[in-house]
């Protein structure tokens, strides 16, 4: 029993077993939403942060310890329309809470084929200073010293204390839907 506990401890928490990967260029994040006027999206190529994970352990199914702190500067999210960006950044309270933050606490590899691993992940998402626990499927691919994490999750703005923006138009106010889909591809390297 004691031996099992020690093994478990080593498996899940020993930092020496993990490799540290840092953000590299090539990442992208997109938030898709809908409104009474048209569908909208904002995008950024800035995903910062690090992930500590035993890359070799990603090659076989099972739970493994992983730690990641990821951030996206809110003001880097752009729609291509200056006014819409201003409205969105204000709605997300960017002046006070400048980042979207994701903290990863656990990865479970569901299937692995070659350098590609289908996983479930658990962690917390912090937007507008409000933290919500989340779990989402992710894909992790390894290529040399690079690790790319892809995934998407649908969240409600109101769960993070954000009132969906309702900008004025001469023809009336736009009604923005509460649900948004966050899609990301995070490129990291050692």
């Amino acid at each position, binding site marked *: 029993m004691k031996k099992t506990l020690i093994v478990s401890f080593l498996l899940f928490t020993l930092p020496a077993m993990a490799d540290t990967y840092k953000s590299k260029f090539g990442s992208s994040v997109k938030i898709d939403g809908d409104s009474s006027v048209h569908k909208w999206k904002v995008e950024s190529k800035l995903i910062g942060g690090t992930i500590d994970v035993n890359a070799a352990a990603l090659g076989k199914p099972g739970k493994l310890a992983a730690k990641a702190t990821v951030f996206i500067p809110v003001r880097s999210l752009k729609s291509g329309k200056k006014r819409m*960006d201003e409205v969105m950044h204000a709605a997300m309270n960017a002046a006070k809470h400048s980042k979207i933050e994701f903290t990863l606490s656990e990865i479970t590899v569901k299937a692995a084929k070659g350098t590609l691993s289908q996983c479930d992940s658990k962690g917390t998402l912090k937007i507008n200073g409000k933290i919500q626990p989340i779990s989402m499927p992710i894909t992790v691919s390894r290529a040399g010293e690079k690790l790319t994490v892809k995934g998407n999750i649908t969240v409600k703005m109101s769960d993070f204390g954000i009132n969906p923006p309702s900008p004025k138009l001469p023809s009336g106010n736009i009604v923005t839907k509460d649900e948004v889909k966050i899609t990301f591809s995070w490129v990291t390297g050692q």
Partner: protein
Amino acid sequence: MTDQKHDVNRRNFIAAGSSLAAMAAMMQAFEAKAEESGDESTARRTDDSTPPMRMGLIGYGPHGREIARNLAQLPSAPLVAISDNYGPMLRRSKREHPKAKGYEKFQDLLTDKNVEGVIIATAPHEHKAIVLAALKAGKHVYCEAPLGHTLADARAIAKAAADNPKQNFQAGLQFRSEPQRHFMFPFMRSGALGRAVQARTQWHKKTSWRRVSPNGAREKAINWRLNKELSPGLAGEVGMHQADLVNYFLNVKPIAVSGFGSTIQWRDGRQVPDTVNLVYEYENGFSLAQELTLSNSFDGEYEVMHGTNSAVMLRGSQAWMYKEADAPLIGWEVYARKEAHYGKPGVVLAAGATTLGKSGKKLYQESTFTQTPLFYSLEAFAYNSHQVKTTVADLVEAFGEPDNETVLEFLKDQLGTTNSLLPAANSVEGYQANVIALKANEAVNTRRRVEITAADLTI
């Protein structure tokens, strides 16, 4: 950078059928404007919530004072420091802007950590030393145009700006930032003129350019405009802005310029002509003529561009289009407001002037872009500097200290292609306008045709 957003390929446009594309481009511009303006005043494009960029002003002469007055109306650009090397001017700046810290030496202003952006309003021959020091000190830089009084100075300034991409550099080509003129940009680029034939600009004013001072040395210094060795002449001080506007709208660059000048009114020993005529040649047969005088004010200033389908006249913050009888119907002009002007009805092209849109709905109110081009230019500098500053900060936080190439590429991608900047002239545009103006001044001084090569326009 925003050019790319509005740049409509003229050849494709003509091939696709001009009337439909022009209408689409124009309506898109109208609707975008309506969507953006809402019920708010559009006198400013930023508001009180726009994060401030703390400004330092170098040079408190007449133009520096005009800049300070404009900054006082811009919450996004608080003036925190002023430098002038002439004691009485520095004391005047303290009286008029008591909140701004005064510095006799610009070098001391540049060490002030409270100053984030620097506006340089000295004589052109003093720009180079100040710009290079300001960039080295990590400041965002607004340099009045012309950037330099020589090609070498202009090139050194533009090169220094390119070598410091983490800092925003703006050349003081004010028309590039003025909303009315920028509003017309997609319209002009869509080929509504037809084939460009010729353009003409005029600047008529009765003013001596001479300034007086009780101090002889000071008087000599402040009359640099009248000194042939230091002055870019009427071509550089005035004509440059109008020529740049034509070149910008029509996306052309001159290949040669001829000109001559005379001193008719102000025969006070000056070496710089008070009346100048210029003709710029272009590769495709297009030409631009400029009339500039300090001797007569009749008919003021304007720019007019003639094409095979129509002519467009810009006068201050107003613009009109005059169509040829055989020009194809564009469509939207039926609903546009018309004014009798120059003996025939002109379609009003002013931002905000068109009141009817699809289904007859009112698109938006009359334009309230009532400020000066200088105001909008400074507003753009403050806003864009903040954008560059925060984007670079985010980049560094995410990926560590990047090299210049990475910064340039990232800024282009993150700001240039996302419509995140207010329109403004960058260092390359400032340099090219500067070169063209100095070549024009050379043509006036030598009374010879002066060629403008691609190498001249390359930094």
